[in-house]
């Protein structure tokens, strides 16, 4: 036992070190040019004097352009020719911070930005010293005046650049109105003052509604109408400014990204990458676009011309007569060229091309030399083509050739394509060091798990084969996207194996339990349809959150509450007088219920009126905060009471403390779960009680079987709760429970618990199952021994091997098309599984439970 413990204590930190090395090489900060674009002496005349840049977070293309949209005024701008609409393809990761970087600097985002998006306090993401179209305004002869209202990400990215600003935090997702009123309330004065050159507005309401209720939430039409009214107000201002001040104003309306069918974003599906984009100005009517709006809704979210989101950057810069930012890989939008004469058009595009050529030269050290590394090979042929086009552009009489604009666009588009593919340079040596380290350690762990744990041939064989298949499956991009199928598939296989084993010992009870578990599994697999291929298809969660099933949902939620109440009453407050026991177990449950109820009401979920009536409801963020705090407080009190009563109790029951603590922990997990997922806990509880019963039959269950079941149920429950290997499904709606401001540690813990509630549940349940097995089998081994030698060794070996496989996949497939969309998020999730779930929950908390149960 002791050597095993020591080995894990030795392996875990070293593996983490290996992971660190690998991550350092794999997620480098992207090489960017510092400094600013040279001021061009001969730029085409500016078309616009002022820019209003209105970002509506998660404004998907169809929200504006389809005939189901309620943005009537905006659509009338298109059909009257005063606005040019586009679908802007946002590069993943489709989260706010990298997208804002994209639409201001014009550069391809760095994958690590997705993480920094969550770690809000991080200041390393600031764009100080990097060129952007905002900075270009400040670099004018007479520095421009910039104002910003909305998402405070802008303030973090551009510290000190805004003359007036008001930032709003974007992480209280349940707030639909305050975040936007905070922006709109400044408009009256700002439009009257009108002394600014750039006004940035960033509205968060649409994104919040999406996260809470999806793209078809009942709140969405009204919110879009509100946005439409703001567009109207801004456009009217632009018209007036044109008449009275003679200043032309460019209004840009855009989404930073879209959202998928359940309202999340972060990944790379069609809905998430399709952001709406609209350039509007009274000047545009003379271009005569002749477009019609609204259009019929399409499945691929492609409306009008599809351009890259970064194309916004050169377009704005060109229209206001500023130089193109240094790191820009955007291409000037062709439709906007018509403002200029032919010679000016060529001049503009040539500047765009020269600026992009500077990046090409820097990226591929020398454009004259063939490039040798993998990325160069990938781009090899294109590089030749680019060089050919560039030579053509450099010809002395290029401007007089047949179609210089076409040639310039061919050059720009190809360069953009190549540059967005080769956006990062890996530090291969650091990756190799990490990989080798983890390879050595994980093979050590795997060998120990197979040869030094207790003898149980069938389980070990299943473990070895399963782990190997899993490790291989990680190299397939669609198997990563659809990882849940692997776990549902192997869970049924494992149950089947146990069923065969139970038939061998002729245990009918065990057979029936296993069939019931199979039944529970088949409900779980349809609870959330996650992944890519069938994401958003009709599932139990969608049914439960529909209006007709609201009653059923809340009956199930109540049932779960009753179950918690019963468990607290029975396992925690068993020794006190009945009345006190009732009150003590009722209080935490009712405070949990009222918290969940007010959260649901706040989010606009449908709640049966009977229940809504009995809960004291006064909505508002403060109220929610207090209810969350009450819930947490009651959990702490329960825990303190339980500890004291166990210590003082005269009866010696080894498992009384851990069992009670388990049920209190479940209470905490439910607090961190959104209402539609609370009924899953009934299924988890069913699995737990069936597994515990199975553990009592020591002929069927062995410690290794418990470990294997725990591993499988952890993953199954993770995916059944709607998680996936895409960043889009990270659920932050419960990360701010009881927290009034942003601080990394509590928010991080709450976010982890709310996404890993299932895996945590099964770690605790599995650990207790081991002790039940020990009692029933009358084994001479101590529970610590079973836990460390069997449980930890196997779980650690599995996670180490899967970490190795993911790192290997990222290494081998580093020039794969899906490296940033599939494998990098998978690596991040694996870090979560490895460090937090395995390192913190399985190892530390598990060990704590086992040691405490032995002490008491």
């Amino acid at each position, binding site marked *: 036992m002791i050597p095993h413990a020591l080995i894990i204590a030795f392996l875990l930190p070293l593996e983490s070190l290996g992971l660190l090395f690998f991550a350092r090489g794999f997620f480098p900060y992207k090489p960017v040019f510092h400094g600013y674009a040279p001021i061009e002496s001969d730029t085409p005349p500016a078309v616009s004097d002022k820019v209003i840049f209105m970002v509506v977070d998660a404004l998907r293309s169809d929200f504006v352009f389809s005939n189901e949209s309620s943005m009537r005024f905006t659509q009338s701008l298109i059909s009257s020719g005063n606005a040019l609409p586009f679908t802007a393809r946002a590069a993943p990761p489709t989260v706010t911070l990298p997208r804002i970087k994209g639409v201001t600097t014009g550069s391809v985002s760095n994958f690590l930005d997705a993480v920094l998006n969550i770690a809000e306090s991080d200041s390393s993401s600031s764009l100080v010293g990097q060129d952007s179209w905002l900075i270009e305004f400040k670099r004018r002869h007479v520095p421009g005046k910039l104002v910003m209202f909305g998402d405070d990400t802008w303030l973090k990215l551009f510290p000190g650049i805004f003359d007036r600003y008001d930032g709003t935090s974007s992480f209280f997702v349940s707030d639909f109105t305050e975040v936007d009123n905070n922006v709109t309330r400044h408009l009256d004065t700002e439009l009257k003052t009108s002394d600014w050159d750039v006004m940035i507005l960033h509205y968060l309401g649409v994104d919040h509604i999406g996260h809470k209720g999806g793209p078809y939430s009942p709140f969405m039409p009204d919110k879009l109408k509100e946005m439409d009214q703001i567009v109207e107000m801004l456009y009217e201002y632009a018209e007036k400014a044109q008449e009275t001040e003679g200043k032309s104003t460019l209004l840009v309306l855009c989404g930073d990204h879209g959202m998928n069918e359940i309202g999340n974003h972060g990944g790379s599906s069609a809905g998430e990458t399709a952001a709406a984009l609209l350039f509007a100005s009274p000047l545009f009517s003379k271009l005569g676009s002749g477009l019609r709006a609204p259009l019929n809704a399409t499945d691929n979210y492609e409306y009008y011309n599809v351009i890259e989101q970064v194309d916004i950057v050169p377009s704005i810069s060109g229209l206001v007569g500023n130089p193109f930012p240094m790191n820009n890989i955007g291409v000037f939008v062709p439709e906007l060229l018509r403002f200029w004469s032919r010679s000016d058009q060529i001049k503009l595009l040539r500047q765009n091309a020269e600026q992009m050529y500077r990046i090409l030269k820097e990226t591929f050290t020398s454009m004259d030399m063939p490039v040798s590394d993998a990325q160069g090979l990938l781009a090899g042929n294109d590089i030749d083509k680019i060089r050919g086009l560039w030579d053509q552009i450099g010809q002395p009489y290029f401007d007089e050739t047949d179609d210089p604009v076409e040639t310039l666009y061919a050059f720009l588009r190809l360069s953009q394509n190549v540059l967005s593919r080769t956006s990062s340079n890996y530090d291969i040596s650091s990756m190799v060091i990490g990989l080798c380290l983890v390879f050595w350690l994980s093979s050590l762990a795997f060998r120990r798990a197979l040869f030094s744990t207790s003898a149980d041939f069938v389980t070990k064989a299943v473990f070895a084969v399963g782990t190997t298949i899993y490790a291989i499956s990680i190299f397939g991009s669609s198997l990563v996207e659809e990882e849940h199928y692997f776990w549902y*598939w192997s869970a049924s296989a494992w149950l089947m194996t146990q069923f065969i084993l139970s038939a061998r010992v002729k245990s009918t009870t065990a057979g029936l339990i296993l069939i019931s578990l199979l039944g529970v599994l*088949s409900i779980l697999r349809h609870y959330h349809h996650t992944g890519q291929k069938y994401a958003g298809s*009709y599932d139990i969660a969608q049914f439960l959150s529909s209006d007709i099933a609201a009653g059923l949902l809340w009956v199930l939620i109540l049932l779960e509450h009753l179950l918690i109440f019963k468990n607290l009453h029975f396992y925690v407050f068993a020794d006190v007088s009945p009345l006190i026991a009732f009150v003590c177990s009722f209080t935490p449950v009712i405070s949990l219920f009222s918290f969940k109820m007010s959260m649901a009401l706040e989010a606009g979920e449908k709640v049966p009126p009977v229940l809504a009536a009995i809960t004291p409801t006064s909505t508002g963020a403060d109220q929610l905060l207090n209810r969350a705090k009450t819930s947490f407080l009651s959990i702490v009190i329960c825990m303190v009471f339980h500890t004291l009563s166990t210590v003082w109790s005269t009866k010696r029951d080894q498992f009384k403390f851990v069992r009670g603590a388990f049920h209190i922990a479940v209470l905490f997990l439910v607090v961190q779960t959104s209402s539609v997922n609370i009924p899953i806990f009934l299924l988890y509880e069913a699995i737990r009680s069936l597994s515990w019963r199975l553990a009592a039959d020591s002929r069927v269950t062995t410690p290794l079987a418990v470990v294997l079941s725990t591993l499988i149920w952890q993953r199954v429950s993770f995916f059944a709760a709607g998680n996936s290997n895409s960043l889009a499904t990270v659920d932050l709606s419960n990360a701010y429970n009881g927290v009034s401001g942003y601080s990394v540690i509590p928010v991080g813990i709450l976010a982890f618990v709310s996404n890993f509630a299932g895996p945590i549940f099964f770690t605790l349940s599995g650990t207790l199952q081991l002790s039940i097995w020990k009692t029933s089998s009358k084994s001479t081994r101590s529970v610590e021994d079973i836990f460390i030698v069997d449980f930890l060794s196997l779980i650690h070996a599995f996670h180490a091997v899967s970490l190795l496989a993911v790192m290997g996949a990222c290494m081998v497939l580093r020039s794969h098309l899906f490296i940033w969309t599939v494998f990098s998020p998978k690596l991040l999730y694996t870090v979560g599984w490895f460090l937090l779930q395995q390192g913190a929950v399985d190892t530390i908390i598990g060990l704590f439970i086992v040691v405490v149960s032995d002490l008491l």
Partner: protein
Amino acid sequence: MARIKSTPRQIATPSAPTSATAVPYKPNTLFPENVITSSALLAFPIVTVILSSLLPSDPVKILGYSLPAVALIQAVNILFTNPAPEPVAKSSGNKKKKQAKNTVSTTILGLVLSMLLTPFIHLIYVLFGAPVTVSIPATFLLSAHTALLALFPILCTYPLDGVTWTNLVALKAPVTPAYTAALGTIAGAWLGAVPIPLDWDREWQIWPVTVVFGAYVGNALGRLVGAVFSGKEKML
């Protein structure tokens, strides 16, 4: 029919099963054994090829139309290769004709019973992850095919009692082609589900084409393994 000519051998070999749990596999004498086995072995790969090439166009139609044909092939196979399960109590006094009739009636009974158990197999497929609300006809026909491939021969080979079936589930029953073919069918159907989630966008990735294919291939392989290893006392 096969039983009539096999009587001399029948008398020579002790008819009471050596193991109380199941009837051991007996060689057939109407045709040389290897002819029967090889024809049975050939039949299913052919069906597999035909089915899998036709299936993606309209799985429900093809599965439905091919069902009687598969039933017929299976019935013929069973009639020619399987000994009738002999009730242990009255194993000695059987007459030739009665025995022949017994084989035919067992086969018919087995066919009817396996068809009746199709909804049960459908339920098992759902438990293992088949679609619940959509593709119900496809899943049902898949279950019918599975019943013909896996259940039908077993029902005709092994007596219907709890001990035998527990042993069958526990992988403790003696090796016969019927048994290994059934195990192969199950394993094949289970492995057949693997390619469905992949993003290859092939027409054959639709439910239940790959599972049908897996079941048939598994069945053929199982039969092959059974033919090679039959006579071995126990599976594991």
